[in-house]
């Protein structure tokens, strides 16, 4: 094998960006395809899609003549809950007024959930992926029974554990956050530490848990320019959400503190100390 056999310029790692080669551990920052991943940063705080569109069942969508093939009934919308087909093995559930975390917990509690490969709660949806493509209609029926059946709304899932995370409120962005909010830094820390947050879902990066419930008085848009790499344990806020960074990711949130509690450790089993649905409180510790 000579270097001449190595691909020419149009196929070098620069043109075919292999993160393996070029980025090491730094996730999507410079990856050309990272829009989707980056959208995690930008879209998490976006309000839900307007209700009429979200609730629009597929059968009501007229198809213009320009479409050569009739779009198949990809969504099964006979019941109250909308299921949207997501590939050969997937259903995307619109949760409407229910918390995706609760819906995911209800699904996982079913005996047939062992036949599911993934149950992925997100901002307003839960994605369910089966192990095989056989029986997708049956799966839809099972999901409907969980979501719309008798008692579906009465027997809520367990409320989640309560996790206390000690935080040192001395983050690099704290002075600027305080100034922009017109508060003293100590008051920002006090208000952040006074709230109870709920683990909404994981996304953007392994172990990146979106915690909902930042008080109105602390809400700020994200940084205009994200930092390329944020260390594990950094506590940050953006919009109505707060996060404890898992480590090794870029980050566009305001860093107000740090915790020594390790919430994500890929060498541990399980790697996550937080689970969807858990309630989280932060406890200020002296710097």
């Amino acid at each position, binding site marked *: *094998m000579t270097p001449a056999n*190595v691909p020419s310029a*149009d*196929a070098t*790692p620069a*043109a*075919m*960006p*292999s*993160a*393996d*080669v070029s*980025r*090491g551990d730094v*996730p*999507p920052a410079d*990856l050309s*395809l990272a*829009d*989707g*991943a980056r*959208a*995690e940063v930008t879209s*998490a705080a*976006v*309000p*839900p*899609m307007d209700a009429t569109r979200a609730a629009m069942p*597929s059968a009501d969508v007229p*198809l*213009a003549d*320009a*479409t*050569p093939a009739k*779009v*198949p009934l*990809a*969504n099964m919308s006979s019941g109250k809950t909308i299921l*949207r*087909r*997501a*590939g*050969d093995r997937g259903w*995307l559930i619109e949760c409407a007024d229910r918390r995706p975390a609760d819906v995911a917990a209800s699904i996982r509690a079913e005996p047939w959930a062992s036949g599911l490969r*993934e*149950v*992925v*709660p*997100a901002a*307003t949806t839960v*994605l369910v992926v089966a192990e095989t493509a056989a029986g997708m209609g049956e799966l839809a029926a099972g999901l409907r029974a969980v979501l719309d059946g008798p008692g579906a709304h009465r027997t809520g899932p367990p409320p989640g554990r309560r996790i206390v995370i000690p935080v040192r409120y001395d983050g690099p962005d704290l002075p600027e956050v305080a100034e922009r909010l017109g508060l003293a830094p100590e008051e920002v820390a006090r208000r952040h530490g006074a709230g109870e947050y709920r683990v909404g*879902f*994981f*996304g*953007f990066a*392994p*172990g990146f848990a979106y915690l909902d419930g930042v008080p109105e008085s602390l809400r700020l848009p994200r940084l205009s320019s994200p930092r390329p790499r944020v260390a594990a344990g950094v506590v940050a806020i953006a919009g109505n959400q707060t996060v404890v960074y898992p480590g090794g990711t870029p980050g566009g949130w305001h860093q107000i503190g740090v915790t020594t509690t390790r919430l994500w450790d*890929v*060498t541990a089993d399980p*790697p996550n100390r937080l689970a969807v649905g858990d309630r989280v409180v932060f406890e200020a510790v002296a710097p």
Partner: protein
Amino acid sequence: MTVASAAPGRRVRTRHRPPAPGTGPEPAVLTVVQAGPAASVQDLGRPGMAHLGVPASGPADRRSFRLANRLAGNPEDTPALEVTLGGLAITLSTTRHVAVTGAPAPLTVDGVPVDGAPRLWLRAGSVLAIGRPWAGCRTYLAVSGGIEAERVLGSASRDSLTGLGPDPVRAGAEYGLGPVRPVPAIPLELAFSVVPCGGPATVRFRWGPRHELFDAADRHRLTTTPWRVSAQCDRVGARLTGPPLAIGSVDLPSEGTVRGAIQVPPSGEPIVFLADHPVTGGYPVIGVVTDADIDLVGQTLPGDALRLAPVH
């Protein structure tokens, strides 16, 4: 260091030391002579952890990967090498069967062409080199017994999006080999891989979950455009170029995504999600490539033409 003292599943770094008397035979090792532009260790990945933000990863062309392991006598999820655009050369410290599948590429053993054989009996010390594929882009190399690589979250797959898994394959890297396994006696001419070649590849997809957000003209354009794979194509996804869809920017909260998802960012040029795709995305997914055809997309190169055909 002997095999017995190496932690199972861990990459062993101190090899080639002559065994001390009485410690048994020298361990079996694969040594990377030349790494090529983008080779990585893969197994069947980390499915089932998307709810923790962990991509499934795994081979970009799962069918060819499984075939390589079967030919080598291994269970299908045994760690093996995914070689993108060739350029890899390896040698073994012990004689073993090796299987080469996926994108067909010039193969040489000690400089002598051995093209066309999906399975070779590679002698200790000989150098097997994989050149740039004639068609497709990802070639798989499995060794009987499998290679030993670090497992993270239960998998030896290198995830290019998150950095989880073993380090990228570099020249000089050494991987222990598992116990040799008998290889199946099958007609090797039946062991072929599917890669795009010649005219446009037809890739089937299923509408949804968000096709309703697109108007009829956009849906028509998706299925009639001769798309080309852009230079922005890697293990995360393949961006397609062509007349852009007109949907523009959509306020869609992040939602779970699957391999094969055809996501449409505001630019209107679709991206097909591959092995290392992010677990959630904020752009609408107009359709999802079928399980049967997504491996074909994992073999496409910049410039390759493909058509998206809806299934019912």
